[in-house]
């Protein structure tokens, strides 16, 4: 007998069947392959990452004993990758977990083989990162689980940022990652049904994972890095605060664009009010770009009906608020004024919501 799917999924499948959108076989197939909830998927990914470290060590030690050659490491990585890809062809949580751990270990071995030893990380970091990103992208393409694709996309994005890291481009990199995450969630209804929908979902998840700390780090570290490296400032001709200002402007425009897209169906007066509020919020919270980004990510994820990311965006907003206290971009008095103005704006906007739908 097939296992019963969770009640909400069963209700959906029943409706889809009643609307004649799916066959009975599809209904039964979906019922047996319901995805694990997000919290379980996260714990599984962490466990697989831990297991992959042991597997990696297990393969690395004999390779070192036989002879520390790139060929040996590459072969070891290829064997593990082949096993992982073979396992991904089969269904099942357990098999998927094994394959995920094998794939992560394989990627580390292959990157080490292609780019050289990790001990040269400090000098050859761009080369190693570029190879690591390529290997992760390669492993992301074949059929696998959503957790695996997200892990690969995350590895590829992180390595991509490292490979192209340049203090001058720090703000641009952070802006791209933040914009990518918001844009992908905003357009989920367009790509979910496409051929590469699963891959775009993985990129959206990975970009969001990376964007949240980026929005926290950049305002603090961007300017600090330039202040600590005056030579870089002299060479590039940019001021210490430049990355911060670029990021602030991009994040403000991102919020405006998000509201612009989401309010298309509203009457003109309501739309103008929403856009004016977005502009006011972006200007008043310019010293806390993390808060502005969290607002954009929440709106985009809520529009995409992705509850975990919408909730995470709100949780991140609270953390950004705590971090804002220690920010050196403005005095506490100015920050207090900006926060009070933002708070009053939110409360005023709440009054504007239709009363009959409020709780």
């Amino acid at each position, binding site marked *: 007998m097939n296992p*019963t*799917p*969770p009640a*909400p999924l069963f*209700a*959906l499948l029943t409706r*889809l069947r009643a*609307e004649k*959108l799916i066959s009975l076989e599809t209904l039964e197939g*979906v019922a047996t*392959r319901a995805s*694990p*909830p997000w*919290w*379980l998927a996260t*714990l599984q990914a962490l*466990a697989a990452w*831990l*297991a*992959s470290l*042991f*597997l990696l060590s*297990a393969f690395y*030690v004999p390779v070192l004993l036989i002879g520390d050659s790139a060929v040996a490491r590459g072969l070891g990585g290829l064997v593990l990758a082949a096993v992982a890809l073979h396992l991904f062809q089969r269904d*099942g*949580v*357990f098999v998927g*977990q*094994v394959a995920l*751990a094998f794939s992560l270990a394989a990627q580390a071995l292959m990157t080490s083989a292609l780019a050289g030893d990790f001990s040269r990380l400090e000098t050859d970091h761009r080369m190693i990162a570029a190879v690591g990103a390529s290997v992760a992208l390669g492993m992301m393409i074949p059929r696998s689980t959503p957790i695996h694709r997200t892990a690969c996309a995350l590895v590829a994005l992180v390595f991509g940022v490292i490979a192209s890291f340049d203090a001058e481009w720090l703000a641009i990199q952070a802006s791209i990652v933040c914009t990518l995450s918001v844009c992908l969630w905003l357009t989920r*209804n367009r790509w*979910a*049904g496409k051929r590469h*929908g*699963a891959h775009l*979902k993985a990129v959206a998840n990975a970009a969001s994972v990376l964007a949240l700390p980026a929005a926290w780090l950049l305002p603090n570290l961007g300017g600090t890095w330039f202040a600590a490296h005056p030579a870089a400032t002299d060479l590039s001709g940019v001021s210490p605060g430049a990355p911060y200002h670029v990021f602030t402007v991009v994040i403000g425009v991102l919020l405006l664009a998000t509201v612009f897209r989401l309010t298309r169906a509203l009457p003109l007066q309501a739309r103008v009010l929403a856009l004016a509020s977005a502009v006011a919020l972006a200007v008043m919270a310019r010293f806390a770009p993390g808060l502005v980004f969290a607002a954009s990510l929440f709106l985009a994820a*809520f*529009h995409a*009906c992705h*509850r975990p990311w919408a909730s995470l965006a709100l949780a991140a*907003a609270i953390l950004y*608020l705590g971090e804002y*206290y220690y920010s050196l971009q403005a005095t*506490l*008095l100015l*920050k*207090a004024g*900006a*926060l*009070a103005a933002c*708070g*009053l*704006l*939110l*409360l005023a906007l709440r009054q504007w*919501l*239709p009363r009959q*739908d*409020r*709780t």
Partner: protein
Amino acid sequence: MQWTSTQVAQLFELTESGQLTGQQLDAAARIAPLEPGRRDWVTALDRILGFGGVLLIGAAVIFFFAYNWDELHRLTKIGFALAVLATTTGAAMIAPPFGVAYRAALFGACVASGALLALIGQTYQTGADMWMLFAGWAALMTPFAALSRSSASWALWLIVLNAAVLRALSQSVWFPVFGMLSHAASLLAVAGLNLAVLVLLECGLARMLITPARHLHRLAAIGVFVPLIGGAIVGWWDRGLAGVTLAFYCAALAATLVYLRLRRDLPILALALYGTIAVTAAAFVVKVQVESFVALNLVGLLVIAASGGAGVWLSRLHRESGAQ
């Protein structure tokens, strides 16, 4: 008929995982738009704008007093803080009971009570330690949290209470600042506090909440397991923390029994199970003396097998429970 937000999310998930085709998704979109409906937006924005607005204003008050404006007389400052507290409680009195405005206003009162306490400490320099401020704040906000019956206010209360205990332990003469988390007693104290809150919630305190959600239970469970897991892993190397390892296994066993048999809560069960896997893997690393190819693979396979098995079992329980 509209799709609900949950159904839209599931339609996307099923299509992205290849279980539905793009054509089927397009057909579903022709029945109703694949996006949240007007009512979903209004309900979400109602809460976020209400609680968010109050939180930002509360934070603004704290920032303002932290600025320590010399030109402002101390009585003016205290009057201002009292006015904010009076405004929030007054707003709660005129708002419909237990609605979003009522709960948001009392959440604001919880934040404002901390600002008032900090201001008094700043003005009169009582010499009190930081942990006393947090403990006092938790005590002051308790009536507001109880009246609000809101998860947000109680979550803030729990966080402030934990901050008080952490600060008290780090300042205590027995646990020097940086060594606090390396002492079994301090880890057990943090876990014990959260366990007490969890037990109270399970024994009926949660009935005080307007929305019967289990967010608070899970927050308290994280407060129990995070210090215990960290201490238990280190406990395999450091004999001084061996008691934490024992306490962790007892807590994990108790959580498994309670949240499997008595009150099914899969996220807490998963926390206990995956924590057990992590702590047991650490035990193997120490006891098996992982140095060889076989031993390393053994531990790796143990983690894979245990986490895979736990994943299969929890997925089955998830399907059976019908939860989302």
